[in-house]
C-alpha cells in the first residue's frame, strides 16, 4: 500500500525529441496534462512541462510565435537530467523528491523502461484516501503524550465505544506549554460516527486532551 505503483498513471502520453513544440503544446491542451516524457526507442531521454514549452516560445500575439512553434523542437527545451521514481518507492519518498527538486511530476522507470508517471495531484489523491476523507466520518484532533502506548491507549478508547477508526495520522511533536511537561503529538483520527460526545468524555477521563471537537 501507498507505493508509487498504487497511485501512478500507467497510460502515458509521450513525445519523440524531434517533434515540434507546437505539437507538444497541442497535446498538453487536448489531453489536459502538464508533463510529457520524451522517449527515444522506448528509453526515457528527457521530460518537458507545459511551462518549459511556453517559456521557450514567443507570447500569444507575437508574430514570431507561429513560426517558432514549428521550428523549435522538443529536444531543444526538454530537461535531459530527469529525476525519476521506482514503482516500489513509497509514495512519501516520491513526494519528498518532488518537494526537494521543486518539480510537479516524476516519470516512473523500471529496468530502464518507462512504466508510468506520478504527479503532485496523484500524491494529493493518495493523501485524501490515506486520511479517509472520501468516507463518511468525523475528524477529531487529540493531543497525546510522546510516550510508548499513547496512540494505542487513545485508539483503545474508540474500540471500547465500538467506534470504527477510518484513519489515524500522527504529527510531529510540539513543544510543551510549560516546562517539565511531557512533549505531545497531535493525532488526527477520522472515525465513523456522527456522535462524538461520549467518546470525547472517555478520552478526557483517560487523560488525553481533545483539541477538536470543542466542548459544548
Amino acid at each position, binding site marked *: 500500500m501507498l507505493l508509487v505503483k498504487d497511485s501512478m498513471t500507467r497510460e502515458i502520453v509521450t513525445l519523440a525529441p524531434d517533434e515540434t513544440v507546437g505539437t507538444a503544446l497541442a497535446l498538453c491542451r487536448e489531453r489536459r496534462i502538464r508533463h510529457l516524457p520524451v522517449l527515444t526507442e522506448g528509453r526515457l531521454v528527457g521530460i518537458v512541462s507545459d511551462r518549459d514549452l511556453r517559456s521557450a516560445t514567443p507570447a500569444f500575439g507575437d508574430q514570431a510565435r507561429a513560426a517558432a512553434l514549428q521550428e523549435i523542437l522538443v529536444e531543444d527545451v526538454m530537461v535531459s537530467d530527469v529525476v525519476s521514481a521506482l514503482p516500489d518507492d513509497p509514495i512519501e519518498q516520491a513526494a519528498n523528491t518532488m518537494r526537494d527538486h521543486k518539480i510537479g511530476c516524476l516519470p516512473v522507470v523500471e529496468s530502464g523502461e518507462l512504466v508510468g508517471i506520478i504527479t503532485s495531484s496523484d500524491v494529493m489523491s493518495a493523501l485524501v484516501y490515506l486520511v479517509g476523507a472520501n468516507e*463518511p466520518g468525523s*475528524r477529531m484532533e487529540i493531543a497525546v503524550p510522546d510516550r510508548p502506548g499513547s496512540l494505542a491507549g487513545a485508539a483503545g478508547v474508540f474500540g471500547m*465505544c465500538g467506534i470504527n477508526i477510518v484513519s489515524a495520522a500522527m504529527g510531529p511533536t510540539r513543544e510543551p506549554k510549560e516546562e517539565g511537561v511531557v512533549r505531545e503529538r497531535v493525532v488526527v483520527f477520522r472515525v465513523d*460516527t*456522527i456522535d462524538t*460526545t*461520549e467518546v470525547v468524555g472517555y478520552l478526557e477521563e483517560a487523560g488525553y486532551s481533545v483539541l477538536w471537537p*470543542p466542548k459544548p
Partner: protein
Amino acid sequence: MAAQALSGRAAIVHDLALENYGFGGDHPFNPLRVRLALELCEALGLLEDYPFVSPRPAAEDDLTTVHTITYVRMVQKAGRSHSPPSDLLDYGLGTPDNPIFPDMHEACARVVGGVLAACRIVMAGEADHAMCISGGLHHALRSRASGFCVYNDAGVAISRLKEEHPGIRIAYVDTDAHHGDGVQWMFYSDPDVLTVSMHESGRYLFPGSGGVDEKGRNGGVGYSVNVPLEPFTDDESWISCFEAVVPEVLRAFDPDLILSQNGCDGHALDPLTHLSATTRLYEHVPKRMHDLAHELCRGRWVATGGGGYDIWRVVPRAWTALWATVSHQELPERVSKDWLSKWSGKSPVGLPPLLRDDSEDYPQGPRLAKLAERNLRTVDEVVEKVLPRIQ
C-alpha cells in the same frame, strides 16, 4: 390571514407507529423529539383542523429504487434475529450510531412511506403543502446505514415521483447542520434533481463531505449545490448566505416540487454540532421555502424533519414553527402552559417559556465578523462556479 388566501390546504402525515423509529437507551436520535414537537403543536391548537394522515410503510420495491436488495435483506434480518449476522458492520448496522432494534425494517420503511405519502398528496393536488416530521434521514446510503439513518426517505420519494411523473423536476433543500450526503450521492448525475445543502463545514464535522466543489457529475454537473458554513456561524450570517444562494439556484432550476429537509441541529444548544443559530433561523427558512414554492411551483412543498439533538429546548419549538408555516397559522408567542407542566418535570434542562429565542441570550462570539466574511467567500464561489451550470 393573508397567506390563507394565497393557498389553502396543508396536510400532516403522521402515525404513532412512526415513533417506533428510534434506537433506544441513551441514543441521541430519540423518537421522543417527534412526540414533544407534535404535542407542542397540539397544545397550541395548531393541529385542530389537521387530522393526521396515516401512511403505509414503503414496500420493498419502493426501497430498492435507491437501496440494494442485499442491504434491505440485511436490515430485515437484523431486526428479526436474535443472533445477528456477522457482516452487519459492513452495512453500517450494529454500530453505536446505528444499533439494531427489533423490527427495524418495518419502522424504517414506515418513515419512508410517510415522506412518500406526503409527496403524493402534494403532487395529487390534495394539499399544497405537506409535512412528515419523522422523515429527513438524509445520510442513509445505497448499501449502508450512516449517521442514524437506515433508509433514505427523500431518496425513495424522489425516485418514485420521477417514475410517476415523467419529466418532473424536484428541488431538495437541506438545512440540517450535517451535509445531506446520502441524497446528494443518489442523484449526483441527475439534472432533474437539484440537491442544495447548507451545513457546517465537513472539514471537521460528520460526514466530512459537502464542499463547494461537489457540484455533480456528468450531466448532473451544477445540480448538487453545497454551502459549507464555518463552525460557530450565527443566524445573521447563515440567513444572508441562504438568501444569496437558495432563491437564485431554485429560480434557475425552476422545480415542480420542493422537498425540504428541516433538521434543526444547527442551533447553538445542539450537542452534536458547532453552529450558533437560534429559532430565528428555523422560522426564516420555512417561510422562505413556502414563498419560493408559491413563486416557482404553485405552492408544491413537502417538509420533513431531520437532525436535532437538543430534544427538549430546540426541536419542539423549531418544528412547531415549521408546521405553523406549512399550515399557514400564526406562530404563538408563548409555549403552552399545559405542555410545560406535562414535560418540565421530565426534562433534564429548564424549558424555555417562549417560542422564539431572545437574541440577548446568545451573545456573539469574538470572531464572528471573520466567520461571516469566510462564509461570504464560500457563497461567492457557489454563485460563480455552480449557479451558472444550472439550466
